[in-house]
């Protein structure tokens, strides 16, 4: 399953949308830094997010709608960190806000139906290279904060309070494995959710197109129901875009809480 398949006529490859295409081939110090469609959408996400937050910087006493929207997002992240970490959570607001909004905007921008005007949105959160880097960032923050604050006492994270002496070793092993799995589960959850949604939409849209092309009968039996289902799935995908960004930010804040307070 690769880009070659899509080259064959009259076949829709639902995976083709995830293909990375270089727009400019660059190299720096032996590292390939080609500016790809993926990088382009990261840039668009950054710019849109920048403009969005910029609109909320009017600092008016009585906020307008835009300022209100931006403030409700910062307030949302602030409340989440306050609830999960406490007062120390405040200093993580910039990171978690950036993380949440970056993923949210990437997910939502990737869903935009810009294909009708010839621009094909690329959802870079459907690539585990990207989600993996974000997950590793969160995980490294947890490690750095944990060891910075508690030193070697951070390892007591793996031994919950009240563990019987005999159980310390197996419990610590299990806790350690579940701890080490965190970045993978973070990265895979987002990547799989985004990819699955996009594949589903692509498959359904191929049903709509192929069914309609096969004549009014198949168009009515397959095309129309698929189209109606697609509308529902589109709404669901918008929901998933928000939920996955939320889950990523929420789990990050929970992991940071572990690092801040151990157990």
């Amino acid at each position: 399953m690769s880009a070659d398949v899509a080259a064959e006529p009259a076949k829709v490859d639902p995976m083709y949308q995830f293909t990375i295409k270089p727009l400019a081939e660059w190299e720096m110090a032996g590292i390939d830094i080609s500016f790809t469609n993926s990088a382009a959408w990261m840039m668009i996400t950054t710019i849109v997010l920048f403009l969005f937050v910029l609109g909320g910087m009017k600092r008016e006493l009585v906020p307008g709608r835009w300022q209100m929207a931006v403030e409700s997002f910062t307030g949302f992240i602030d409340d989440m960190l306050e609830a999960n970490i406490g007062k120390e959570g405040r200093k993580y607001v910039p990171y978690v806000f950036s993380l949440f909004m970056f993923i949210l905007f990437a997910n939502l921008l990737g869903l935009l139906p810009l294909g009708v005007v010839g621009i094909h949105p690329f959802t870079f959160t459907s690539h585990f290279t990207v989600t993996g880097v974000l997950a590793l960032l969160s995980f490294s923050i947890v490690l750095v904060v944990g060891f910075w604050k508690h030193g070697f006492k951070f390892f007591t994270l793996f031994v919950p309070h009240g563990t019987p002496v005999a159980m310390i070793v197996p419990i610590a092993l299990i806790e350690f494995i579940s701890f080490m799995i965190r970045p993978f589960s973070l990265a895979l959850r987002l990547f799989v959710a985004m990819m699955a949604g996009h594949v589903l939409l692509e498959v359904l849209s191929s049903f709509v197109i192929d069914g309609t092309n096969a004549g009014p009968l198949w168009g009515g039996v397959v095309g129309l129901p698929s189209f109606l289902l697609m509308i529902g799935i589109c709404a669901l995908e918008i929901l998933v875009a928000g939920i996955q960004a939320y889950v990523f930010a929420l789990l990050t804040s929970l992991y940071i809480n572990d690092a801040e307070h151990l157990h």
Partner: protein
Amino acid sequence: MPQIAQLLETYQSQIFWLLVFFGLTFFVVGRGMVPKVMDTVAQRDKQIADDLAAAEAARAKADEEEEAWRVRENENRANAQALIAQAKTEAAAKSEKKISAAQKRLDTKLAKAEAEIEEAFKSALAEVEDVAVDAAQDIVQRLAGVTVTKPVAKSAVKEAMANG
């Protein structure tokens, strides 16, 4: 699956550009702009809290003043009530005095009048006695030709009048 098929040829640029753009997002938006937005919110919350506190204080003061006013008002009312009551009792006492004085005057007048009547009655009675004594002497003189002395006649008259 391009994510895996293209992994080796794209991971470097993916990671590089992600770090560039997420870094930009973090430093410009997250570190640069978000604290300002939150500062605005905090400032507004503080101002609202201050305004609320000021309003609360003003209300407490108004309540206090109202209470003081009420106390004063009650005092005034009580004073007025007391004044009225005093005036009433004074007026009542005065009128009573007047009435009793008038009564006294009337009583003395009445008593005087009664005494006068008594006196008049007595003098009239005495006159009647005198006349009766004279008449009795005269009658006895004429009828029996006996001269009766005045004291005798008088005692006879008195006896007759006491019986009559």
